[in-house]
């Protein structure tokens, strides 16, 4: 066991890839395939928690793939990576459980391999310490998520042609983003002669100190803002998200909104606060302005939506703006706040998307105007949606309240009064659109029973209920007892702002 201890980072990537290959071969044995997939997903959750505990207790873990030191590919687990991996593996396990009942049997045989590849791509991009490898894992998760968006649900409410159109937009934009990322990576390599992130960081800092920093490093920084902004769907690049997230099956929407757009946030934190740490000052105002536009446009668009999943998608756009606002402020408290925000949003939004899947299954439509009075026929969904809505709106005692509170607190300490005022205004918007959705769907009477038909009597299985219950419990727990998350975020932010420990852990290694 002690030898296995050392291999946690690679296991988090290797297990999903291996299981993806095995599940392709087991397509004719659905039971075995499902069992294998769930077992792998659960073991990944366990391993990621063990990894986080190990990083917390004994510092940054560096794993050399192929023992080539900083010249080969390395996996690095610091607090940021390890905690996001715990989040992503947890959300993906719950989504997988949910999708066992939600996805059509015919789609499920290709769903499992793609889902495992998506998990591998996510964990790879969170754990890698090599910038080109980051690009490779971005492509892995892009292609597998495209395959998952077109998977069919049992209820068949979202048409196949809609899914294709959304996926086409998503794929074109992300291939362009990948091309831009390659340009940025190649230029960084031509400038510094290395692909290792810690090494690049040291060399850029040395160039900055010597005054020989070439001007095109700033252009590279702007390219990275475009690349990660495209992944995270911030303001000028957010148009694909409200098409893709609603048309995907609900568990995949939960993955996309909960974890996948956080890849952009993670990349931003890693590249700007670590690789470009000494030239960051120039980019901060850009990030703040983009974040404010994202908050405003996301919230204002969400107010007018009638499609429940489209509303949640626009709400995701708005909420990711708050995360980027914290990143733009750049102080210790603000980064800790945006990490807390990211965690709370991931859990609450996954809860909302999974619940919306149940609601759509129950109502037979995605249009909120055709629903109403559902609190009588489905009280469980009403409570779960209310808990998620309260968290997104930022009401105590949910996790969303804590995250908004620490973010605004950090902004006021940093004297960003105008920015905080705008963010507060749109926080009221978010309260309005979440409760408008809840009232439309659950309160009152069904508007026109003759035209829209009765609600389906078909109850959902425990596979659908259990993930929702667990996520709702987590939203409440993070609101009521938030100290562990806050202290974790504080420690992580301290590590992000002072990357000396990371650099030492990566660079002081013996090359064979």
């Amino acid at each position, binding site marked *: 066991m002690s030898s296995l201890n050392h291999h946690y980072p690679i296991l988090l990537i290797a297990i999903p890839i291996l299981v993806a290959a095995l599940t392709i071969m087991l397509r004719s044995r659905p039971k075995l395939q499902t069992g294998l997939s769930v077992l792998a997903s659960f073991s990944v959750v366990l391993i990621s928690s063990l990894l986080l505990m190990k990083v917390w207790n004994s510092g940054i873990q560096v794993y050399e793939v192929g023992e080539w*030191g900083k*010249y080969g590919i390395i996996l690095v687990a610091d607090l940021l990576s390890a905690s996001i991996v715990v989040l992503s593996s947890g959300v993906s396990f719950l989504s997988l459980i949910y999708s066992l009942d939600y996805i059509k049997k015919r789609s499920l045989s290709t769903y499992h391999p793609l889902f495992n590849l998506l998990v591998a791509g996510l964990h790879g991009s969170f754990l890698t310490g090599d910038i*080109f490898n980051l690009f*490779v894992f971005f*492509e892995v998760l*892009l*292609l597998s998520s*495209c395959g998952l968006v077109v998977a069919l649900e049992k209820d068949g409410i979202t*048409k*196949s*042609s*809609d899914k*294709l*159109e*959304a*996926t*086409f937009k998503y*794929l*074109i934009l992300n*291939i*362009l983003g*990948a*091309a831009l990322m*390659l*340009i940025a990576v*190649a*230029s960084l*390599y*031509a400038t*510094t*002669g*290395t*692909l290792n992130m810690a*090494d690049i960081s*040291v*060399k850029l800092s*040395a*160039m900055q100190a*010597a005054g020989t920093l070439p001007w095109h490093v700033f252009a590279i920084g702007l390219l990275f803002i475009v690349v990660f902004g495209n992944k995270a769907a911030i303001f000028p690049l957010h148009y694909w998200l409200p*098409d893709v997230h609603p*048309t995907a099956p609900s568990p995949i929407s939960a993955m996309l909104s909960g974890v996948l757009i956080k890849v952009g946030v993670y990349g931003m934190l890693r590249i700007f606060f670590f690789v470009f740490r000494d030239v960051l000052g120039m980019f901060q105002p850009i990030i703040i302005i983009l974040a404010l536009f994202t908050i405003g446009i996301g919230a204002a668009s969400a107010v007018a939506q009638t499609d429940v999943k489209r509303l949640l998608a626009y709400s995701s756009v708005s909420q990711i703006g708050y995360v980027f606002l914290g990143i733009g402020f750049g102080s210790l408290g603000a980064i800790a706040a945006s990490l807390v925000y990211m965690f709370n949003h991931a859990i609450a939004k996954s809860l909302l998307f999974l619940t919306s899947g149940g609601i759509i299954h129950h109502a037979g439509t995605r249009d909120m105007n055709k629903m109403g009075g559902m609190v009588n026929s489905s009280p469980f969904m009403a409570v779960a949606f209310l808990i998620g809505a309260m968290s997104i709106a930022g009401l105590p005692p949910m996790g969303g309240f804590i995250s908004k509170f620490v973010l605004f607190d950090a902004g006021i300490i940093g004297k960003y009064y105008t920015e905080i005022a705008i963010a507060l205004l749109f926080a009221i918007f978010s309260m309005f659109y979440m409760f408008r959705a809840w009232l439309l769907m659950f309160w009152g009477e069904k508007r026109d029973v003759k035209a829209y038909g009765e609600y389906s009597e078909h109850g959902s299985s425990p596979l659908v209920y259990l993930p929702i219950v667990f996520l709702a419990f987590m939203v409440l727990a993070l609101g009521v007892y938030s100290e562990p998350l806050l202290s974790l975020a504080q420690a992580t932010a301290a590590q992000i702002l002072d990357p000396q420990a990371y650099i030492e852990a990566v660079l002081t290694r013996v*090359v064979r």
Partner: protein
Amino acid sequence: MNNTLLSLVIAILFGIGTFLILRRDIVRVIIGLSIISHAVNLLIVSAGAFSGKDVPIITHNEVVPTNTIFSDSLKNGVLAPLLNGTEPTHFVDPLVQALVLTAIVISLATTAMIIILAYRIHEEYGTTDIQKLKRLWG
């Protein structure tokens, strides 16, 4: 080989690719994406193609020197690893070629995926005109 010529070729390829992506036909968009990915590959190669004169291969008869430098000395402009006593730019950089190989394989996969998607869109919508794909607008 001329460095300026290569830069010019890359720039023209980017221009053609961008022009094609802005067309209305899906197939042209896909061709534009492929051309852009080729331009990026050329850019990566150009990052390391002109830095050395020897092929980066150590033959079996050659003795690998023991005094290899593995740590950078930024003050002297030395980027590790390199062999002690030689010019820093003795070998052509082999890493960029490995990067391009990876990038080509990935762009093969994405192109295959997007062509299948275009075919299915043609089946569902009966057109390859992007402006007719607007069921999700609003």
